[in-house]
C-alpha cells in the first residue's frame, strides 16, 4: 500500500515492567521495539493510545506517564473485559501493539502562571498523573503556582500510585497532597470520607487557579457541585470524557457527541465546553 504510515497498524512494543497498583489495576511500562518509532514518539499530557493484545483486540487508554519521561511509556489499566484481562495476564517481556498518541491534551500552556488543583478518583488518576508529573518536573515547575492534589479511592488497597501519592509528590516544592478513602481501616491514618465532601472541607480558593478532574461519573457530578460552591467558574474546570472507541482517528464514528469526535476533539474539555455539547455521554 501507499508509503504513508497506516494509522490503524500498531507499533510493536514490549512490556518492560508491570507494577501492581491495586487488586485490579496494574501499570504497564512499555517501550516501542523500533528505535526510530521510539525516538519519534511525542505525546502531551492527557493524550491517549490504543493498546493491542493480538487475538484479544484493542482498547483506548490514557498515557499515564509524563512526556518528560522519554525512555518509556506507562499505562495504568483496570481489569474490565476481554482486552484488559488479556493484558493483566501478560508478563514482562510480552509483546503488544501500540498506536497513537491520540486526542487533544490538557491545556498546560493556558495553565502557566496559575495554581492547579487536581481532583481524582479511582482509576481516574491515570490521565491526571501524566499532567501532575509534567508540571512537577524540574524544568516545568517554575511556570506554575501552588499544586494541590486531592485523590480518593474506596479503600487503601484501591489507591493507585501509592508511592507518589503517599511519599513522592508532597516532597516537591509548593505541593500539597490530600488523600482519602471511603471507609476507615486499621492501617490507614489519613482522612476518611468521600472526595467531594473532603474537597469542601479542604476548601481550595478559586483565584487564579484551574481545577482538573478525573474519576467516576458520580464523583465528577458531586465534585462539580462542590467546586461551584467554592466559587470556581466553568471555564476554570477541566475534565476528560470517555466514550467507547474503536479507531481513535475520527473514522469509525463510535465516539461522537453531536458533531464532535471525542478521540480527535477530546478527551479533554473544559466544563464550559462540555456545557455546549448535547448531553449524550
Amino acid at each position, binding site marked *: *500500500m*501507499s508509503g*504513508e504510515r*497506516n*494509522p*490503524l*497498524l*500498531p507499533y*510493536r512494543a514490549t512490556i518492560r515492567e508491570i507494577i501492581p497498583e491495586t487488586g485490579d489495576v496494574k501499570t504497564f511500562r512499555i517501550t516501542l*521495539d523500533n528505535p526510530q518509532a521510539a525516538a519519534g514518539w511525542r505525546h502531551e499530557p492527557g493524550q491517549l493510545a490504543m493498546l*493491542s493484545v*493480538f*487475538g*484479544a*483486540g*484493542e482498547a483506548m487508554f490514557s498515557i499515564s506517564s509524563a512526556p518528560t519521561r522519554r525512555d518509556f511509556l506507562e499505562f495504568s489499566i483496570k481489569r*474490565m*473485559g476481554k482486552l*484488559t484481562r488479556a493484558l493483566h495476564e501478560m508478563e514482562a517481556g510480552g*509483546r503488544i*501493539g501500540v498506536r497513537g498518541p491520540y486526542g487533544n491534551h490538557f491545556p498546560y500552556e493556558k495553565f502557566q502562571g496559575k495554581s492547579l488543583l487536581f481532583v481524582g478518583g479511582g482509576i481516574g488518576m491515570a490521565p491526571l498523573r501524566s499532567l501532575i508529573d509534567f508540571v512537577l518536573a524540574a524544568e516545568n515547575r517554575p511556570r506554575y503556582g501552588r499544586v494541590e492534589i486531592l485523590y480518593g479511592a474506596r479503600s487503601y488497597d484501591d489507591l493507585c500510585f501509592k508511592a507518589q501519592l503517599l511519599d513522592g509528590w508532597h516532597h516537591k516544592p509548593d505541593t500539597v497532597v490530600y488523600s482519602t478513602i471511603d471507609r476507615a481501616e486499621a492501617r490507614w491514618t489519613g482522612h476518611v470520607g468521600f472526595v467531594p465532601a473532603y474537597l469542601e472541607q479542604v476548601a481550595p480558593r478559586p483565584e487564579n487557579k484551574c481545577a482538573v478532574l478525573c474519576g467516576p*461519573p458520580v464523583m465528577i457530578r458531586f465534585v462539580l457541585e462542590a467546586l461551584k460552591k467554592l466559587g470556581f467558574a466553568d471555564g476554570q474546570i477541566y475534565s476528560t470524557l*470517555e*466514550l*467507547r472507541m*474503536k*479507531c481513535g*482517528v*475520527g*473514522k*469509525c*464514528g*463510535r465516539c*461522537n*457527541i*453531536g*458533531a464532535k469526535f471525542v478521540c*480527535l476533539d477530546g478527551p479533554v474539555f473544559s466544563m464550559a465546553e462540555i456545557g455546549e455539547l*448535547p448531553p*449524550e*455521554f
Partner: protein
Amino acid sequence: MTAARVLAGGRMVPLLDRIAQKYRLTAPVKEDGVVLYRRVDGGREVCLDFGLPLVPPKAHFFPQTERLFSYNAADGLELKEPPGITASVLFGVRPCDLRGFAALDPVFGGRFADVYYQDKREHTTVVGLGCTAVRPECFCTAYGGSPVDEQGADLMLTRVGESYLAEILTPKGEQLVRRSAEFFPPEGAGEAERAKAALGRELEARFTRRVDLAGVKEKANTLFESSYWGKPAHRCLGCGICTYLCPTCHCFDIVDEDRGDRTGARWRCWDSCMFRDFTLHTSGHNPRGSKMERVRNRFLHKLSYHLDRYGLPGCVGCGRCIAACPVNIDITRVIAEIKEAG
C-alpha cells in the same frame, strides 16, 4: 477538463470487455433479481438496465469486511498488511452515489488518512452512469443533485437515445478513454450534450418527492431534547439496514480473529449507530442506551453533524433507507416533521 465523446449503444458490451482486459472491473450485476456491484470479467455479465444497486458502491472503497493486517504473535511478533489493489474501474455509479463518495472522502482523508480507502480510491477510475428514470424514493434534487449530474465521476456516461454521451472529467477518465479510443468518436458530441440537458430537465420534472431543506439543520439542532424523536423511535426495530445501505454511513467495528495459535487477522466490519451495543461501555454505562437516542443520532448525523464537521450534507437523497426500512421510517417525512415540530 470536460471533453465530450459519443459511445454507440451497441458498443457498450465490447467496451466493457476491453476495460476488463486492462483493469480490475467492478460493475452492476443482477443476482436473483437484485442488482449488486460485483467483480466481472467482461461486458456480458454487466446489468445495464437498473435503477439503483441495492448496496451502495462505497463498498468498493470501504468493504463490508476488510482485513487490516494479519499477525503472528506465536514467536516474536509479525504484522503483515494486505497488498494494495491493482488499477481498477468501478463502472455504473449513479449521481447520488458519486456524491456519497464526496461525503466519505473527508472522513477517510484528512488527518490520520485511511490508507485502505485511499489506496483503492487512488487506483480506481470511476465511471458514472446517468439515471434514465426516477425511483419513487429518489430526492437527490433536495441536496442540489440531479439524475444526470456528472460531479465526482472520472468518466460520465449518459444514455441519450441510441447512444451514450461520454464526458471526460479527469485525467483518469482521459486515460481510460485513450486506452479504448476507437469506442469514443467525437462526432455528434454536441448534439448528445444538448440531449443530456433535455433529459435532465425531463427527469427533474418527474420527481414525486419535493423536499425543501431550508432551515432544517438549524431547526433540528433546537430539537435535541424534544419528545419528537419518540415518534420514529417507537416504530424503529433497530435492524440497522438504513445505515448499512446508506452511501454516506461510515461506522465500523474492529475485531481480531485468532486461529487459536496466536496467529490470525484483524478485521474491520461495517457497524451501525442503530445498535445498542455500539456505544455500550464495559461498565454497563451507555450514552445512547435508548432507541430514541439512537434514532435521533442517526437523523442528526444526516441532517446536521456531518455538515458541521465536513461542510457537506450527510445524506445525498438516494432513498435507499426509505425503500429498505421494514417499518417505513422515511427520512423525507422526518424532515417535514422536523419543520412542524414545536
